[in-house]
């Protein structure tokens, strides 16, 4: 939206007496993507800008609060803007919810850094050069490993700037960068795919990513199907990220903390009560939008509520809801601000002890475990926590030796898993996950036809 259009829009909105409150949201996205096919041959270079603008308005309707959210096209004339706002007001008379206070004035907004300063660069050529350099770094590392071919490499760089102006006179903005490496490697007749997404370009570390993937795909090429197994499962690498930060929706342990689900009487959580019957390490999960350079480092949420670091679950006890302003008002609690980077507290065991199967409860070491480094797709039922996930690569860990396997299904329930878990003291940061490097879950089942 051009500044003069925005100014004209705000002037119109201010004159509308029936509008209780409003927000004008602008989002600008700039991206540079490189796509390579097999052997690192360039297929496509994509770049460009995208802008979208929205108007959210609220009005009082017979003791209820009406709302509408609409795109606001560019280059409207004043008359067209008036008509668009008429339409939005009309919609708000129909879309009504029980009373809540949509907008409040808040204090200061935090100053966490969620973007890479590289994107201050204006010259598009610099991005093309950067992408080429990253591609070459990845491929040069691969060349050091025998029997590996590159099937696919994609590198995406993206800068997002959002701005909100509200009827309370506020005007705030935040900037995020999201950078991704996606690669598929082949070895013999097996493949391995992995994605890495980071706020800072340098954190992608193409050479390190290539090195890790190369080891994994080579192991995949030597792997057979596993035998069925009941016992300790260790999650590491991609698998632990997928467990705590699944791609389709939040981990059920976090999802049940959502205010909306509590209001719908779907969430099973009660404040101050344990979320499960913990027998080993107790889970602590914190939402942290204030950590620098996380993928979910944010200043505010869609209701302009300032971001805050907030413990969701502490030592297994449910502490705080993650909620929008509306549901916070319904639940008579403070709104939480945005769901930020997922911080999982480290546990009681070192990585070495986890692989050795040390168990305080039984006092014994389990002789054998299955380590899973990657799932085909970890997608637990969001409410029950049930899942069955195919294993893309794992290892039988026995007597200090690791034997790769591929296939089999890990079945279980997320809420049951966390009752009998050990988390490593060592932690990693990847994307929006800040947490244990590895985790061990007891009494798990891998089903296999072998």
């Amino acid at each position, binding site marked *: 939206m051009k500044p003069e259009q925005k100014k004209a829009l705000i002037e119109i909105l201010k004159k509308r007496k029936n509008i209780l409150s409003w927000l004008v949201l602008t989002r600008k996205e700039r991206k540079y993507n490189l796509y390579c096919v097999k052997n690192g041959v360039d297929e496509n270079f994509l770049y460009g800008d995208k802008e979208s603008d929205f108007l959210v308005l609220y009005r009082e309707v017979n003791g209820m609060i009406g709302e509408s959210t609409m*795109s606001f096209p560019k280059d409207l004339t004043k008359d067209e803007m008036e008509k668009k706002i008429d339409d939005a007001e009309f919609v708000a008379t129909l879309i009504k919810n029980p009373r809540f206070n949509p907008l409040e004035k808040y204090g200061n907004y935090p100053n966490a850094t969620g973007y890479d300063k590289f994107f201050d660069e204006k010259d598009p050529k610099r991005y093309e050069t950067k992408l080429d350099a990253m591609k070459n770094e990845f491929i040069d590392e691969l060349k050091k490993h025998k029997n590996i071919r590159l099937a696919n490499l994609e590198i995406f760089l993206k800068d997002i700037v959002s701005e909100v102006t509200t009827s309370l006179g506020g005007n705030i903005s935040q900037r995020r960068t999201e950078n991704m490496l996606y690669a598929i490697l082949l070895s013999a007749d097996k493949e391995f795919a992995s994605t890495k997404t980071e706020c800072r370009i340098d954190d992608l570390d193409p050479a390190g990513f290539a090195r890790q993937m190369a080891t994994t795909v080579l192991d995949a090429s030597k792997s057979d199907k596993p035998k069925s197994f009941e016992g300790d499962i260790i999650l590491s690498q991609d698998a632990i990220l997928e467990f705590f930060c699944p791609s389709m929706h939040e981990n059920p342990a976090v999802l049940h903390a959502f205010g909306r689900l509590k209001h719908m009487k779907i969430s099973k959580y009660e404040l101050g009560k344990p979320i499960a019957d913990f027998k080993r390490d107790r889970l602590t999960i914190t939402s942290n939008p204030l950590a620098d350079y996380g993928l979910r480092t944010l200043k505010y949420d869609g209701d302009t509520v300032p971001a805050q670091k907030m413990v969701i679950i502490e030592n297994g006890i449910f502490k705080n809801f993650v909620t929008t302003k509306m549901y916070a008002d319904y639940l008579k609690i403070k709104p939480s601000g945005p769901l930020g980077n997922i911080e999982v507290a480290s546990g009681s065991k070192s990585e070495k002890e986890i692989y050795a199967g040390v168990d305080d409860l039984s006092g014994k070491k389990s002789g054998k475990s299955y380590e899973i480094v990657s799932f085909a797709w970890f997608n637990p039922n969001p409410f029950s926590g049930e899942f069955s996930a195919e294993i893309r690569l794992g290892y039988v860990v026995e007597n200090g030796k690791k034997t790769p396997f591929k296939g089999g299904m890990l079945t279980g329930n997320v809420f049951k898993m966390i009752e009998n878990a050990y988390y490593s003291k060592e932690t990693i940061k990847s994307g929006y996950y800040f947490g244990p490097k590895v985790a061990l879950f007891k009494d798990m089942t891998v089903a296999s036809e072998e």
Partner: protein
Amino acid sequence: MALKLDNKALKKVQDLFSALINMMEERAESADILLIDHKESSINRDNDNIDFSEGIDFGIKLRAFDGEKYIETHTTEFDEQKLTLLAKTLVKDIPVKNKKKNKTIKQSVKKFSEKCKINPAKITLQEKIKLTNDVVAKVKNFSDKITAARVLYEENAERRIYASNSKFYSQDLMKSTLVMIAYVKTADGETRYSYDSAVRNGFEIKKEVDKMIKKVGKDALSMLSAKKIKPGKYTAILSPDLSGLLAHESFGHGMESDTAFNDRAKSVGFIGKKIAPSYVSIIDYPKISTKHGTYFFDDEGNLAKKTYLVRSGVVKDFLTEDFSANMMKIKKSGNARCESFDHKSYARMSNTYFEKGKESSKKMIASVKDGIYLIHASGGMEDPKSWGVQLQGVFGQRIKDGKLVDEYYTDIGVTGYLLTILSNIRKVSKEFEIEGGGSCGKGHKEWVPVSSGGPFLLIDEVELS
């Protein structure tokens, strides 16, 4: 939509795009333009709350091929000056070779549109809100064991325009989608849910409501007693929804030409070979009417057509996008799709399904002594390199002595080796439906709408866990 384009305005767009393409082709080997004008509105209603949002996604993609690779850029501004500058910048670094001037070709101009029975634009918002209110109330009233309900009503109207030096195509697509979810709580406090979805072109989707409520309510109550299945091999009957998911996840992805070109597709070694009984065929057809994955031409200007991935048991043709199709020197199927104007096009599915057979689904169930009827799933994952099958979150019902009995299973995983599963297809039903759909991703990104459906399938020895 952002642009109101009558015939006169469309002609202006054609002229502008032709001029831009000619300019780009002074340096580029070829160039094309894709305009996407998409409007979506949705009403999301649960027990106590409702929200409405309306969004427009408008943009223009300019793409040039320099002889080796594509370069593309995009903008959300429909402004001749801006577009001209973008086009010039896009090709400025392509060296001017002794290029043969592209012959002036008369552009083929085609217009396509989907029709609906009841135009949603003529239905008031009040009526649409009433629909969602009524659905939530009826789902909740289906049984006092249903603790919560949610409904999503969504309308999508889209115009896509593709232009190259030889083509100027436009298509107007419209979809109305209805999704219903019913939640129940088991005796030990666990929340479970059932859902159903339907897609139609227009507000005629309202006619599906009663049937959907009955299904979602019945399934929700069945969820209360649903257990985890004992891992093993079972005789299974796949519902149309499940058979569509099998066709899509387990076979379709492996027939995408970009996957094949990158040496990731096991199917490459099986072209022309028999992998299933003769009564098994798998088709991708973008033009099948009124489905979630329907379109008339792809995002590279290739007209949509029916492609047999498997015909009478034999592996046949790939689903293509231009780059890999040209490299592999194979015929183009019209399956290049991008998530939006600011995304690259990939080879993607549309409406992918097993071709219907001759058997009666009732007789199929009657023929099973002990097995499982697999009803719906939350999704699946492809494994084109190894032909592994993975379908997740499957809800099933026991078949005993030829009858469906009151024994239900939830969160079933279906796995196995594709060749084994296809070889074990014993019967394909004559009953056929493609009702719902979802979004298909490529590497957990690049989402495009696809449908899910087909016939019932009876398959021996399916691995369930």
